[in-house]
């Protein structure tokens, strides 16, 4: 065991990233689309997913994913996203000091719909099988790590990467996440009556549920800074509501605790936070709880957005995609508008940004919450 001394803990930088979504296949394409208010959420009629129209952000004919016959759509998403994140880098971060961390809720579960059920299929849909295929594809020799912690998976995957690098176990981490929207996922959210019949409206008084979305996101973390503008992962925290498996806390105290602990872990106070990328699913309960938590942490006046009306809820990819936009917001000094918001719809109002706003941001906070009562918060800093 390495004895930790705060003075010797290395900084962890985001040296590369990628967002692969229906509105773009690079981070730059995605950020430009968001700046222009372009959303990927629209009506789809896909019988394979739902007998009725579904309002979601889905890839058209899987068009911008490079398909390899050995891999299923889930792995293709991960591999494409990692390849693109890697391609922009002058240095190859793939070596024996690199670990792969995969974030997903359901991975290849759609195979249950299309393939005969056999013991081999049980192995094929296992998340660790996909992670190993992706690791092998890139020649990553260390045992890959899969995090499946509902909708906080992506944020938790970045936090886990930060810790593994800070503790000296690895020097680099490729943190990637994706989920595929299938009949399985769609019918489940529908059974919860959680799906909106229109483009979702996070934090708005007329919000009536979430949209689902497909996408992948990748960040490459390293203790070796590549560019002067590389943003740091400065801290984070995870908590549990201990209240209900499918409904969030009534008070927001537990997400509030995760936020306050994340700030402390990052060595900053509420006054230092320049921007919040909220979970903001646009369900009644989530947004209400999240607004309470943000207020409890003293962050109610900090400019905030939710990206769910652009991407839908991309489940295991959401924490990654939304973190990457937060990182780009720090680098470019822009906060993109929170689509779908016109009037406050939560009991403790938060400062929802509705216009493209120029702002110098030193520290950005990303929050997430999910089934099982889990909450996560992470801080990115210039």
């Amino acid at each position, binding site marked *: 065991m390495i004895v930790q001394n705060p003075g010797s803990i290395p900084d962890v930088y985001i040296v590369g990233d990628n967002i692969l979504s229906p509105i773009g296949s690079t981070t730059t394409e995605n950020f430009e689309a968001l700046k222009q208010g372009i959303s990927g959420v629209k009506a789809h009629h896909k019988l394979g997913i739902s007998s009725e129209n579904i309002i979601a952000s889905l890839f058209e004919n899987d068009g911008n994913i490079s398909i390899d016959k050995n891999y299923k759509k889930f792995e293709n998403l991960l591999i494409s996203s990692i390849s693109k994140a890697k391609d922009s880098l002058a240095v190859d971060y793939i070596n024996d000091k690199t670990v792969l961390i995969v974030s997903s809720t359901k991975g290849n579960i759609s195979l*249950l719909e299309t393939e005969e059920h056999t013991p081999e299929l049980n192995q094929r849909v296992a998340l*660790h099988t996909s*992670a*190993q295929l992706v690791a092998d594809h890139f020649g990553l020799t260390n045992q890959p*790590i899969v995090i499946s912690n509902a909708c906080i998976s992506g944020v938790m995957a970045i936090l886990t990467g930060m810790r593994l690098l800070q503790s000296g176990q690895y020097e680099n981490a490729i943190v990637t996440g994706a989920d595929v929207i299938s009949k399985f996922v769609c*019918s489940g959210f529908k*059974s919860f009556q959680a799906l909106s019949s229109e483009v979702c409206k996070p934090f708005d008084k007329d919000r009536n549920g979430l949209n689902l979305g497909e996408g992948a996101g990748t960040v490459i973390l390293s203790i070796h800074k590549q560019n002067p503008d590389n943003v740091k992962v400065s801290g984070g925290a*995870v908590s*549990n509501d201990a209240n209900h*498996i499918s409904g969030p806390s009534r008070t927001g105290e537990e997400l509030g605790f995760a936020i306050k602990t994340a700030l402390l872990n990052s060595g900053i106070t509420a006054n230092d936070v320049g921007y919040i990328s909220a979970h903001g699913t646009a369900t009644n309960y989530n947004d209400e709880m999240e607004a309470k938590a943000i207020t409890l942490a003293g962050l109610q006046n900090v400019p905030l957005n939710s990206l769910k009306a652009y991407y839908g809820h991309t489940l295991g990819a959401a924490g990654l995609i939304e973190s990457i936009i937060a990182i780009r917001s720090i680098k470019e000094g822009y906060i993109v508008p929170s689509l779908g918001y016109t009037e406050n719809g939560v009991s403790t109002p938060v400062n929802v940004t509705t216009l493209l706003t120029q702002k110098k941001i030193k520290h950005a906070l990303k929050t997430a919450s999910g089934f099982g009562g889990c909450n996560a918060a992470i801080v990115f800093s210039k």
Partner: protein
Amino acid sequence: MGAVTRQLYLANSMAAQKYITASCIISNNQVQLNGEQGFAGDNLGIDQLLLAVYQHFHFSYPKFHKMDNLSKLGWLAAELLLKDFDKTYYHAEQIGTVLANANSSLDMDLRYQDSIKDVPSPSLFVYTLPNIVAGEICIRHHFKGENAFFVLPKFDAGFIKQQVDYLLDHNILQACICGWIDVLGQDYEAKLYLIEKVKKENAVEFAVESLI
């Protein structure tokens, strides 16, 4: 954020002494509690086994019967693991979970998949995530600290220990329930360990070799 937690953060993060203060293994029709047999059944299917253990120890928790088998198995193992645990010694935020398995929630995924052709049920769908078992344990025992769920090809004591070490050495948690909870069809295995910094009677040092 209380003053105590703040102080803990500001203090140097040191590799603290850590102990396995309880263990519970449920597999092969048996319950092993702190190394001793607590229950033995005879060729029971998983449904009967889970109910038999519940009844044998006279548990009374109506929500148990609504859970899927993964959550039932984890709930039972945690219930037994924590029978002598004094949680009032800690803040709710100082107790957490680090769990892993190989099959995620596939056992319930298959059941839910079967139900889609009729009327998809939210009470089944909610269990199609592996971390729900952690949620059930946290609800039951009022634990509000970090909870992590990993999907690994097989039980990896080194990985689990590394994750728990980080959380306890950095004072993110003071007590952690860690281990393996896996269910698929009739196959099941739970191995849970309670890790604390306080040495208690019969505690063994938290080492990879002790996580059997």
